């Protein structure tokens, strides 16, 4: 097991290095940030001064090494646009995104898995067909359009819920949270619903497909032949057996939900990192882009590691392999 853990750690470090090169090389190729930073009327002297100030006159590999060194010190540079340390900027935006993403993924799983199991257990019932129709829609309809419709129906037409913003927040441990106030919850509901629909559809499909295949297996027939009740079979056998693919997708989807938050945050003016990255892409705010991509990559690696650990906890066969 320690050998396996070291192996995974080495893997993670290699991946991070590769990603840092790709991110740096990729982002460097985006336009010329000086054009954005400096007014076109600025004198050549001012231009050169700015270029030196941001280290843009150095050769590429030099910039990369500097960049790595700063990363190691936790210094991601300053945002060109907001003129503040990138890390602080992201830290101030991250809780909003995490809150939104967690609400969406947990909600989608908590609702999608039971409904999916039901749809796989009774594939021909009317409710199952309705669930599947909903999931096909959720799977197909682009997130941004659903967001528009939600705003149109609930905010514009019915006026029940706010169309954007984060609402009132409460500060806990120096971080602002929306879900602790009623107003915040009202603001959270629509964007979370919007973001969760795709994940919900995915969970339903996954749980349904797994259950449908399982119900035909000898494992389930054998449990029935032993006289176990349908509830026992669903809760003790089926749920355990479909947990592995669901945990995988839960992990992977947490990452992609984080990414899709870009869309939802844009529509609902949710002040998270998604909106930040869109703004930084359109304004070529290089340090923000780099930091955001590195952050996402790091999150992915951590999530993948957690998923693997969860696997080992769920599947005794894997425990044996890694021992």
């Amino acid at each position, binding site marked *: 097991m320690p050998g396996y853990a070291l192996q995974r750690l080495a893997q993670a470090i290699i991946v991070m290095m590769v990603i840092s090169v790709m991110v740096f090389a990729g982002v460097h190729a985006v336009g010329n940030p000086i054009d954005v930073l400096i007014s076109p009327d600025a004198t050549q002297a001012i231009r050169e001064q700015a270029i030196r100030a941001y280290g843009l006159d150095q050769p590429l590999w030099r910039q990369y090494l500097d960049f790595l060194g700063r990363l190691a010190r936790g210094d991601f540079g300053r945002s060109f646009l907001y003129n503040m340390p990138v890390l602080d900027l992201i830290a101030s935006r991250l809780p909003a995104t995490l809150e939104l993403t967690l609400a969406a993924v947990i909600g989608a799983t908590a609702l999608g898995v039971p409904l999916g199991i039901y749809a796989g257990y009774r594939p021909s019932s009317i409710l199952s067909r309705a669930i599947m129709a909903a999931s096909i829609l959720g799977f197909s309809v682009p997130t941004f359009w659903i967001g528009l419709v939600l705003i149109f129906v609930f905010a514009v037409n019915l006026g029940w819920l706010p169309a954007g913003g984060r609402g009132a927040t409460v500060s806990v441990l120096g971080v602002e949270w929306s879900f602790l106030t009623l107003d915040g919850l009202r603001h959270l509901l629509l964007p979370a619903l919007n973001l969760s629909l795709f994940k919900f559809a995915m969970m339903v499909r996954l749980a349904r497909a797994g259950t449908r295949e399982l119900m035909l297996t000898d494992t389930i027939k054998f449990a029935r032949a032993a006289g176990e009740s349908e509830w026992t079979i669903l809760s003790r056998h089926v749920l355990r057996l479909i947990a592995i693919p669901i945990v995988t997708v839960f992990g992977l989807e947490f990452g992609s939900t984080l990414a899709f938050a870009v869309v939802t945050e844009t529509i609902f003016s949710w002040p998270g990192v998604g909106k930040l990255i869109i703004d930084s892409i*359109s304004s070529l705010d290089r340090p923000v882009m780099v930091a955001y991509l590195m952050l996402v990559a790091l999150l992915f690696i951590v999530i993948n590691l957690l998923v693997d650990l969860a696997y080992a906890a769920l599947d005794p066969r894997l425990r044996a392999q890694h021992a």
Partner: protein
Amino acid sequence: MTGEAPLSAFWLEFRRNRVALAALGVVATVLLVALLAPLIAPQDPYDLSRLRLTDARRPPGFIGSGGYVHWLGTDAQGRDLLSAILYGLRISIQMGLIAGAIAFTIGATLGAFAAFRGGWVEALIMRVVDLQLSFPAILLALVLAALLGQGKWQLIAALVAAQYAYFARTAHGAASAERAKDYVEAALSTPLPTPRVVMRHILPNCLPPLIVVATVQVANSIALEATLSFLGLGLPVSEPSLGMLIANGFQFMLSGRYWISIYPGLALIILIVAINLVGDQIRDQLNPRLRR
């Protein structure tokens, strides 16, 4: 079992699912309508000289200066929405198909190559593919769209980069599975040359799962392209795709002019849902674990 080739037997089974059949009909109709858009659209929405600002943002049913009915209303530039949607569909489908075809070719080749080469080449290729698969497509497309700038081919490149990995993974899995089957061993032990066995036996048998991925991915590219356009990173404004139409209508939504965003969205959804329904049926039919 009657005397059909595998393909016609497949079609017979497909035909039995009426929902999937209807979806296939919708896909065909939308394709046809998009193809014939210049002939059936009441207006050429890209001809700016014909647009009248007095016709802008009119509700469905309005009769504009052109003297014909705007069945779905008009947009902020005074375009007939129905025409704009037909032309938009054309662009969306074109982008989806081109990106899908390129991603299919690159991905399937890479995956099949990895499966046959084996060893560290396979390990490396599949590692990269897995890594990329765990990275959200939208983020990748966003960054690429930002890097490469705006334009049709830049957008296609972003879509391909976001999607080839699915094809590679599927092709690798299918080719590895087929390779281990007895009929391949039988062909190799005849002996027949490996390239011939790959081209004539293995690849044709890898096609079905790839086709499933292709249907889903074409639908995904269309959605992704719309999303990128919506975020302002898509095609140039002069030839709006469906995503751009929706984005342009967004600001009028709050004032109750829903049609500018809603109708292009509906067209998009009908197309994507229909493709996914077809893909689902194909997938179910190919799943050996659901057969008895």
